[in-house]
């Protein structure tokens, strides 16, 4: 039997969840015995080259590109996992959700401490190549169906390992309370 194929991505996240994936330490050797990676920052494959079994999503959706990537993952993966606070609830990026988009753009490009007085021509990025900003940050499950949720900021490496191992081996997942953390 061929090895199950895993894809991962980071949408509106900080890559902290991916760092946590690497925190499985030497088990990473065992992991590559168990699975094959496809589209993922781990192996730098940029586009899906085949149908995958497990898609792991870090981060929520703050722009149109995030939505496209997420939908692409849904299309190409049998099982999708929301990994971490941002994918599950929007997380830190969702702090902007109470603030009008206009104000967010102004803060980012006109009034923020790093741009204040610099952007004298008041340029707002609007090239067609750029992703479009959404009205708020969406958790992944509001855009596509998500099969599993692994909480944490970031989720503990043991939680990620246990979940992936359980999915791949078909065994029941080990969930001692120490590995489930919500912050």
């Amino acid at each position: 039997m061929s090895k199950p194929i895993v894809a991962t991505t980071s949408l509106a996240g900080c890559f902290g969840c991916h760092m946590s994936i690497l925190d499985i330490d030497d088990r990473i050797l065992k992991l590559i015995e168990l699975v094959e990676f496809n589209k993922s920052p781990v192996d730098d494959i940029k586009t899906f080259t085949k149908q995958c079994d497990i898609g792991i999503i870090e981060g929520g959706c703050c722009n149109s590109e995030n939505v496209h990537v997420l939908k692409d993952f849904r299309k190409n993966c049998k099982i999708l996992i929301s990994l971490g606070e941002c994918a599950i609830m929007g997380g830190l990026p969702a702090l902007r959700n109470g603030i009008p988009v206009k104000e967010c753009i102004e803060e980012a490009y006109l009034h923020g401490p790093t741009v204040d007085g610099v952007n004298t021509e008041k340029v707002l990025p609007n090239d067609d190549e750029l992703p479009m900003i959404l009205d708020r940050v969406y958790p992944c499950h509001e855009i596509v169906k998500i099969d599993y949720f692994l909480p944490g900021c970031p989720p503990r490496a043991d939680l990620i390992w246990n979940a992936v191992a359980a999915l791949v081996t078909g065994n029941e997942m080990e969930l001692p309370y120490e590995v489930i953390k919500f912050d």
Partner: protein
Amino acid sequence: MKNTLIEIAARYGKDEARLMDILMDAQQALGYISKEAMEVIANELKISAADVEQTVSFYHFFARSPRGKYTIYLNNSVTSVMFGYQEIAEAFVKETGCQFGNTTSDGLIGLYHTACIGMSDQEPAAIINDKVFTRLTPSKVKEIVAGIKAGKKVEDLSVETGDGINAHPLVKSMVKNNIMRKGEVIFADYTLGTSLKKVAGMGTQDVINEVKNSNLRGRGGAGFPAGMKWEFCSKAEDTTRYVICNADEGEPGTFKDRVLLTEKAAQVFEGMAIGGYAVGAKLGILYLRAEYRYLKAYLESVLEEMRKNNLLGKGITGKAGFDFDIRIQFGAGAYVCGEESALIESAEGHRGEPRNRPPFPVTKGYLMKPTIVNNVETFCAVTRIIEKGSAWYTTLGTQSSAGTKVLSISGDCEKPGVYEIQWGMSIKEMLEMVGAKDTMAVQVAGPSGVCLNPAQFDRKIAFEDLPTGGSMIVIGKFRNLIRDVVLNFMEFFVEESCGSCVPCRSLNVVLKQRIEKIIAGNGTMEDLSELERLSKMLSMSTRCGLGQTSSNPILTTLQNFREQYEGLVRKDTDYISTFDMAASVKESCEYVDRKPNIH
């Protein structure tokens, strides 16, 4: 402003425990409580401005900015919605030219929503500057707003008066009692003072024993044995003790305490004095919801009359050392204050957040002193139990539920109102009694209770089967149960959660959104199991009764009316997204001046 506030603070002895009264008076004098006003009050009471602000911000009826010379609070509870809320709300918007949540630009009228105001048998109803307006129609609204614009005083906006004490010169309210059935205990004839004279000749333990033997259980809904509560309090170490009467009936659909305080106030106060005698308390507090402020002058006159007749004050009935007096403490619009420890917090001038229990109020209650907290109806019943004896009382009702119960019945029936029945009546008998036909459901004990389907109408109103504080809402077959009842209840709980426990603060919102999703036709079978799972999680993980029961509207309708939910959800898919790319990028694209590129 400053001098007014200093004078108000002095009126209450600069006592920080009287902050609620000070704020209420400040608002009456100044129209609202500004940041500067809070600072002056804090300074006078020697507490921090943040302490004042956290109390002000907690209560619905405290305004931090002007809410108009005439402030209209229109009730949006379930019965109001059933009887024309929408039409009345539109009429108010049209006549005032003001949207809800705002004041008119000239500062004359403020228009706001409020939760159940205890008028479920005469909805739609609104409160304008403490005066209650019932059975509103668009033409009445027109008349009221025209009166306001013509500068009429609020008491002259309607000359209609209700029955009984509602027509009393100190009340002059259009509220109606609608007492449809008088029972043997509460609404029977009683000669004031009889029981107080009797207890004055009894030992305190004898009084407690009499209440214990009567099997009287708390009438607020929880049903804790009153005698046992009194005994615990009487044996508490601290000898400074208090009696509190819980008149914060906020459970939507309940209004019987309003009627008891209108028609049987002295009997309630006498019951409090009996409680004071039994547990050794000198002070009683009637914690009255702000919605009933129109009864203030009358209730104070009743207290004064009782003092004159030696039924309150020092040496009651001539017995040396039998000292007991009562003061009225007003709330300011918070459902959670009906929970006894939250009520105590509120009476002490704090945010109405429930305490961790134990310790229970009987050992550490008001000002951390032993306190009994009982419902209005409980005290009213005590007076009659002492008069007629516990043996008589236990002949009424059922074995586990002695005596009578006053029900507040509203909704789709011919004769809504207040009914005093013996415990043990079935729902079917109740529906016949009130003239209800084609009933789809009965909401027993308010939103936090249960929603019954017709197959369950043989169940009995009693602690051993259907316990209730008295709220009964009859829902006719032509209603939309999920949209008009369940969603309304969830909106209520979102609004009324004190926010202290995270599961209550957030899951009520999540549950409400799920219901909205289902109503919009975007629900799946998975949403139904999620509703169940989240509801159970919420009920297990909160401190007080609000969060423990706030998912009951969902859980009990999922159980008893599952077919209605299944009729709304889609079965051909297990997932529906309502995400709309074009709508979500519209604003940002417009602002940066680019054409949305949707594909």
